[in-house]
């Protein structure tokens, strides 16, 4: 199986604080891996190093076998990212935003691509509206459209359904499942929604205090820790709940 994303002995230290400690894992092509852990456990730092936003103190990030530190800009063509903490320019319309990012990622046949994304993500009803005036669910769908506009081979999702109502959350999860099957994208999903992780991820990494403390399929982890679901596994591993 082809490895799309490989993390080798990755560490990040800020002055004296170790944010990420010597972690290693792989995401194969056409696979969704979940990354779980409490706030401040190192998930965002790990994602930032994968995106080349942050220089690792030690270790390597390989995208399709090439080290990000060596060919950052070229490899960014194959990556994309969505996070509720990052927004698109508020004053631009949805279509203008998608045009801007389509150009930045040098997307061929951009109009067709925007039409496709608009239909798939139900953006048509507000495609010409100002992005800042949209509801959080609509903004989330626009950000999702931006994150797949370049058909990334590796997609990084940081809490993609945070603050969404159940219907929109389910729509986004269903879309991601369908999209991933169609495009065979490798996805790294950081989430606090355990049912989402159980539904989407073939394997899960549990992080705490910068380290990977456990990993396996959701079912393996549930059985291994003798719990009913991933939420209980999460609490046990992060809080030491017995």
């Amino acid at each position, binding site marked *: 199986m082809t490895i799309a994303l490989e993390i080798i002995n990755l560490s990040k230290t*800020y002055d004296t604080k170790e944010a990420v400690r010597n972690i290693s894992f792989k995401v194969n092509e056409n696979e969704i891996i979940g990354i779980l852990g409490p706030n401040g456990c190192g998930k*965002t*730092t790990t994602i*930032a190093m994968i*995106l*080349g*936003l*942050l*220089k690792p103190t030690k270790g390597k990030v390989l995208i399709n076998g090439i080290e990000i530190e060596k060919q950052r*800009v*070229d490899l*960014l*063509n194959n*990556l*994309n*990212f969505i*996070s509720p*903490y*990052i*927004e*698109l*320019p*508020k*004053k631009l319309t949805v279509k203008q935003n998608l045009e801007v*990012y389509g150009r*930045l*990622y*040098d997307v061929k046949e951009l109009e067709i691509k925007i039409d496709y994304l608009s239909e798939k993500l139900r953006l048509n009803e507000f495609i010409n509206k100002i992005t800042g005036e949209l509801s959080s669910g609509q903004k989330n769908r626009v950000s999702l459209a*931006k994150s797949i506009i370049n058909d990334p081979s590796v997609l990084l999702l940081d809490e993609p359904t945070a603050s969404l109502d159940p219907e929109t959350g389910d729509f986004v999860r269903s879309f991601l499942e369908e999209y991933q099957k169609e495009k065979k994208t490798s996805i790294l999903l950081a989430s606090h929604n355990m049912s989402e992780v159980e539904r989407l991820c073939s394997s899960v990494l549990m992080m705490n205090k910068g380290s990977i403390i456990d990993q396996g399929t959701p079912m393996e982890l549930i059985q291994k820790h003798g719990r009913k679901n991933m939420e209980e596994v999460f609490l046990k591993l992060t809080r030491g709940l017995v």
Partner: protein
Amino acid sequence: MYGLFLRHFYLIKSSLPRVLDLIYWPTIQIILWGFISKFFSIYSDYYNNTLGIILTCAILYDILFRSSISFNMLFLEEIWSRNFTNLFIAPLKLKEIIISLIFTALIRTLIGLVPAIILTSPLFGISILKLGFPLLILFLSLYIFGITLGLFVSSGLMRFGPSFENIAWSSLFLLAPLGCIYYPIEILPEVFQIIAKGLPLVYVFDETRNILINGLVNYENIKQAYLLNLIYLIFGIGLFYLSFLRARVKGTLINMGE
């Protein structure tokens, strides 16, 4: 009422940059107008066409101001709209970012300046276009220095985050008294003259006054201004690259604007 006062008092008390900011603006204004007043009280008959020279220099200074602010604004708008991270995860080389900012800043500068230039003619009977071809050379020199200042400030924003924003606004005003926009360098105290000689502005504005008063072009001034511009521009680009590298180590590119 007291609660609202406390809310702002705590904010000021806890932030030295805010206190310095409050002191900075009146100080700079007084220094600038002090030098202008000193010049006119000593050399009241220096200019035959005072209004023309003052207005022309004010418009030229605005070229510097607008180009630098435009460059900074492009950067700040990405931070304010929390779009900064999206830009730095797009496959863009730093040189591509710099070139696009330079070009966009030029458009913004022209949009802001052209109406002002047009208005001075019917309102005051003065046209900056009377400078002729040298206007283009002076414009370019000020524009280059403006975007160089923009590079310095953007480097600071990238390295230190939004807290560097106040510097973005205040940096240009610091140059106003030292740049000798409305008066010759000799008006400044000697120690300020030494600093001012390191700024291309002094040569640009000296040459502007020279052209308007004598109708001649001294290419020595222009050469000196461009030489200094080149040095600062190279330094500004280097600093931008260095700040990006440092920001990647320190993590300031993550969630900028939060």
